[in-house]
């Protein structure tokens, strides 16, 4: 089969950048344990330090503020747990405050970690969002107080692409003496992120969303803020995350960030225009649709759209048969029929949320890809609607 393959699921993960792959292959020879003092160890250590420098600089922090982790989820979990770490050998808890504020549209790794703290008696407030996916700031201002230990709000949403006003959210958090974390996993490398400008205490990032490898994430920890390791048992990462460093992955992460320095700007521009084309194409060819997320403050490559009368998994699989990879927020494919918690939080009725797909573009996508996609989506939606009980 010589059918066209169009990958439009970059918010799930991205292909390795060829330059990153090269660096990782080279790093495979640096097998020494980065903690060893001999030359083999020092060779591996160098690769890690180098990546740390690049990542720190990219987000406007210092190298020593970066703690590598096994994933973005681990970075997020680390932050949620650290304030209430009850380990004997920790001077915990770091705070007498007992409230966390987050949002209803966070990634499950935040929501589930928060739910776990709730069971331990911490009060968690899940902020509602407006139709565009922006945090309800009035509600936020009304619940935050000197009881709030931590505010954690994601910078850009993985499903609908909405970008939050992180600077303002952080300012309010600090005004009340709370710590502020942002899950910037979908943001770093796609839009400008500067930890000082944003005023964050903690920020999570991940390599595989920006053409780096899977299995490596990082946490930015602002100097002087509380910290408590999530994984213990070694002095790696200056005692902040035990475990022998993933040298190859980290080297790849560093290179991925380095490539972003030059590629991010032009790519964002290109993806924005592809997105506009995609949007216009869908609008022109398919009736009864709705775009979800914020019309302007949105990731350049992310488009979420609801097709009335067509179910998400069916759309996804028909498109897959045409070689096009998208994703759906409804979890039908994974065993539950729950529609996306993000779309529901944004006020979509369940029937519209079930019929939504997320199209997330990346560096390899071309105008031809978008033309092909529009053409196929129109056919697929028409086919599904013809046999649907809802027209």
């Amino acid at each position, binding site marked *: 089969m010589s059918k066209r393959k169009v990958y439009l699921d970059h918010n799930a993960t991205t292909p390795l950048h060829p330059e990153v792959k090269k660096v990782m292959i080279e790093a495979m020879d640096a097998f020494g344990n980065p903690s060893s003092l001999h030359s083999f160890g020092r060779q591996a250590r160098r690769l890690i330090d180098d990546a740390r420098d690049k990542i720190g600089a990219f987000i406007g922090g210092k190298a020593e503020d970066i703690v590598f982790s096994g994933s973005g989820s681990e970075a997020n979990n680390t932050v949620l747990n650290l304030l209430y770490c009850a380990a004997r050998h920790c001077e915990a808890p770091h705070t007498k405050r007992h409230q966390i504020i987050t949002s209803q549209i966070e990634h499950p790794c935040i929501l589930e970690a928060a739910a776990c703290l709730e069971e331990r008696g911490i009060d968690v407030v899940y902020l509602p969002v407006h139709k565009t996916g922006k945090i309800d700031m009035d509600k936020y201002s009304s619940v935050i107080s000197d009881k709030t230990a931590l505010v954690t709000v994601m910078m850009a949403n993985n499903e609908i692409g909405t970008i939050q006003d992180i600077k303002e959210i952080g300012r309010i958090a600090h005004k009340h003496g709370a710590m502020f974390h942002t899950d910037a996993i979908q943001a770093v490398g796609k839009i400008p992120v500067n930890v000082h400008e944003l005023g964050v205490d903690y920020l999570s990032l991940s390599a595989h969303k920006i053409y780096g490898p899977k299995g490596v994430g990082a946490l930015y920890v602002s100097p002087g803020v509380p910290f408590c390791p999530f994984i213990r048992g070694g002095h790696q990462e200056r005692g902040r995350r035990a475990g022998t460093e993933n040298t190859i992955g980290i080297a790849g992460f560093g290179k991925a960030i380095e490539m972003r320095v030059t590629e991010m700007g032009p790519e964002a521009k290109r993806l924005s225009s592809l997105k506009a084309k995609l949007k216009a194409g869908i609008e022109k060819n398919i009736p009864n649709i709705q775009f979800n997320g914020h019309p302007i403050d949105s990731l350049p490559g992310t488009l979420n759209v609801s097709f009335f009368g067509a179910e998400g998994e069916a759309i996804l*699989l*028909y498109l897959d048969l045409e070689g096009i990879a998208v994703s759906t927020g409804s979890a039908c494919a994974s*065993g539950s*029929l729950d529609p996306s918690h993000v779309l529901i939080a944004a006020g979509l009725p369940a*029937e519209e949320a079930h019929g939504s797909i997320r199209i997330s573009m990346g560096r390899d996508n071309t105008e031809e890809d978008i033309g092909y996609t529009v053409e196929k989506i129109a056919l697929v939606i028409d086919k599904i609607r*013809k*046999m649907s009980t809802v027209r």
Partner: protein
Amino acid sequence: MDNKFEWVYSEKVKDHFMHPRNVLTDEAAYNADGRGIVGNIKCGDEMVVAIKVDKKKNTIAECKWKTYGCASAIASTSILSEIVVGKTLDQAYHLTAKDIAKELGGLPEHKIHCSVLGHKALRAAIEDYYTRNGMTNKVEEEKAHIICQCMNVTDIEIEEAVLEGARTYLELQEHTKLGTVCGQCKDKAIQMLEEYKKKHFSK
């Protein structure tokens, strides 16, 4: 990368998904002898099944359908519309979800409810036929009422769950998965739970 990676479902499911048979394209013009609708788009699945009956033989002469749902929902209604033709109403009524899944070459366990939905719509269509033709006695003995639209849980299943030991709403949910999607059925389910507890276990 094309053929090396298996599709999530069986080839048979794929075939019926790609080429759905007997779709009811023009419902208004279709002169059905019986019509059933189950599910709810809010839950993510909704199906309509319409049948024509060979009145002499008491068999299903034609079966058409419409589905709002995922791939296995579409495929299972499609295959159902083929296998019921020629079966007596009684045989068709007593097809099980398992039978349909088997015809499809198997469905992942969490997708079985999609095939349940297809055959529930068929049952509703047969019941509709009975009702229209004055055979209400047949309906009475066979009718189960769906209480949870999303997960397709009937009063009979709730009763069974109670008999198997479910005493609280949570236990009922563990047994039946009812109320786990839109939650609309909760009040009704709790009421039935109490009724069945009373019926079977109060002195």
